[in-house]
């Protein structure tokens, strides 16, 4: 018995469910860039206030250059304004508006700053748990560091002049120059910078798999238990369609839905990254067609694995609520793995932990992309093959445990 009629029926129902499709497509495309805009552009529009409490009445010289609190404050204000024009710097009177960061320049600051035996201390207080204060404080640290670097450079030049030595301040401040000429894979082999970028992109792509699991599970739950709720399953179960055929058709259609959702999500993630990085040089490397092909294969096999993991749970659940709760456990498991790849390199974990992680299908999704990025194409395909094999085994198992009676008779 061919499963084509059921697949056709499922697609007809799917493409005519305009509202669900629209939500599936539009929501990530709108949500992710919006999130990025909220995270970046709105932050840049935010005004932060730094109050400089200038208690310094001292002065000092480096060569002929006089440094006092006016020099210090002007230097810091100029640096801050260059970095972020939206920062409001108040010097003198305490402002009426909310203050995000307070910089105290204590007495003798300028004297110590110009001294060859003392260090000058600037005190910073900031609002706790505030992203805005974090950002402004970070800009202030940069401005202070610039002041420090500049004074240090002037002191070195002055010392050199006094000693009659031709000095390059950089040679004294940073005698070691670090240049990254190439990268290495976990195997120790040298990889190109392009490959290194690929590794970073692979990490992001692996993370974006987090969006793959949910839509396909939602669809397969509805596809099977929704038929029960809409009172169509009983007729379908008495047709000559085999259990294997039923499971295969439902899984295939749901995987296509998942693939569609995943494609939309990947586009949304890319938009998110582009907006977030505002010109970060990703685009050239992202268009690597082979990486995108591998990613496509991984996405599809991940969706299949998700469906096949949730299928036995769904067909034994009886009710939509139970199925959704059980399926959400699978989604959480997937999310945990995909999220962790942002911070953890699975291939560098101890062997025993790796062995445990290998039992989780999603580990293979991540490793497939990462291994490809490192140039291990065979390894990448082995992980995809493992995912697909596991999916097939689980789908066959689902068809074996599919029990019409348990689906139809309400649990007592």
């Amino acid at each position, binding site marked *: *018995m*061919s499963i*084509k*009629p*059921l697949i*056709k*029926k499922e697609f*007809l*129902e799917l493409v*005519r*469910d305009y509202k669900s499709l629209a939500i599936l497509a539009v929501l990530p495309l709108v949500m992710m860039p919006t999130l990025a805009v909220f995270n970046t552009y709105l932050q840049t529009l935010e005004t932060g206030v730094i109050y400089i409490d200038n208690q310094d009445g001292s002065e000092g010289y480096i060569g002929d250059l006089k440094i006092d609190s006016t020099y210090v404050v002007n230097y810091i204000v100029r640096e801050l304004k260059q970095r972020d024009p939206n920062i409001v710097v108040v010097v003198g009177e305490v402002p009426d508006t909310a203050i995000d960061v307070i910089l105290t320049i204590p007495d003798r600051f300028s004297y110590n700053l110009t001294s060859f035996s003392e260090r000058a201390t600037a005190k910073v207080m900031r609002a706790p748990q505030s992203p805005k204060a974090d950002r402004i404080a970070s800009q202030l640290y940069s401005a202070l560091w610039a002041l420090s670097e500049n004074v240090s450079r002037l002191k070195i030049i002055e010392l050199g002049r006094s000693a009659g030595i031709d000095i390059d301040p950089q040679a004294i401040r940073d005698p070691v120059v670090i240049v990254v000429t190439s990268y290495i894979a976990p195997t120790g082999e040298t990889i190109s910078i392009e490959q290194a970028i690929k590794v970073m992109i692979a990490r992001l792509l692996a993370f974006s798999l987090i969006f793959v699991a949910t839509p396909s599970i939602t669809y397969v739950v509805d596809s099977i238990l929704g038929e029960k709720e*809409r*009172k*169509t399953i*009983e*007729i379908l*179960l*008495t*047709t*000559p*369609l*085999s*259990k294997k055929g039923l499971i295969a058709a439902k899984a295939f259609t749901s995987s296509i839905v998942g693939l569609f959702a995943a494609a939309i999500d990947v586009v949304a993630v890319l938009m998110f990254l582009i907006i977030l990085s505002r010109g970060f040089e990703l685009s050239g490397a992202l268009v690597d067609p082979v990486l995108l092909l591998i990613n496509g294969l991984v996405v599809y096999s991940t969706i299949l694995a998700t469906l096949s993991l949730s299928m036995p749970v769904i067909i034994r659940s009886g009710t939509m609520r139970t199925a959704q709760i059980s399926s959400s456990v699978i989604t959480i498991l997937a999310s945990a793995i995909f999220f962790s790849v942002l911070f953890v390199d699975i291939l560098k974990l101890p062997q025993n932990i790796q062995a445990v992680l290998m039992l989780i299908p999603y580990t293979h999704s991540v490793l497939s992309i990462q291994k490809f990025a490192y140039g291990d194409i065979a390894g990448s395909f082995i992980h995809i093959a493992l995912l697909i094999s596991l999916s097939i085994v689980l789908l066959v198992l689902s068809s074996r445990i599919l029990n*019409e*009676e348990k689906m*139809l*008779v309400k649990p*007592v």
Partner: protein
Amino acid sequence: MEEVLSLIGVYKVYGSRTILHDINLQIYSGEVFCLVGPNGAGKTTTLRIMATLVKPSRGHLRFFGKHIRGDGDILDVRRKITYLPEESDTYFRLTGYEYLEFFAKLYDQDNYSEIVELGVEISGLSKEDLSKKTGTYSKGMRRRLLLARSLMVKPKIAILDEPTSGLDVFSNVAIRSRIREFTDRYGTTIILSSHNMLEVMSICDRVSLIDRGRIIYTGTPDEAIERTGARDLEEAFIKLVNRSGDDEH
């Protein structure tokens, strides 16, 4: 007449509740067989067992002289039977025509258009109606489509659970007449459950009365009236049910 379906000593138990007790029924080729009984008597469970959806806890099921054992036997039976559950509906996003075509293809990929043609005829729905999504149909129209789906593949046995339940008198008469016409034309065996005694009298060749999971009468509707001395089938069944209750006590 050839026996097409038998239930032999069938019991169905859910937890501590026995839903069916020692059900023995023989259904013959070309007859319209009715299963009647009060709510909760076990009609739907019996029909689901006949439709191979529910397995008996004890006892056997025999289709066309063959005992049903594994999944292979069940699939073989499902090619020859159709089942219309009482609580069933159409796929709302498919048109009437697409709905019939989907099921026709599940039974016969090559000759599905002929099957659909018959389905269109049985449904009595206009071409215009059939080109609309079934979600726009009235309950009566959906029920006619569901019946057409059950009969269009010319099954050896069509099992219909309360096919006219909840329908107005016009739809009721239309469906009833189509069932009778179809049986006469194609010799399909019809097994149906019903609450409507007028329906039973008008289309059923034989009837079984089930009460509290037990078959308490099997015979023709006329025999039931005669045996109980009742004025009509409704009264006859009430008497049979009461008598069965007295016997139990």
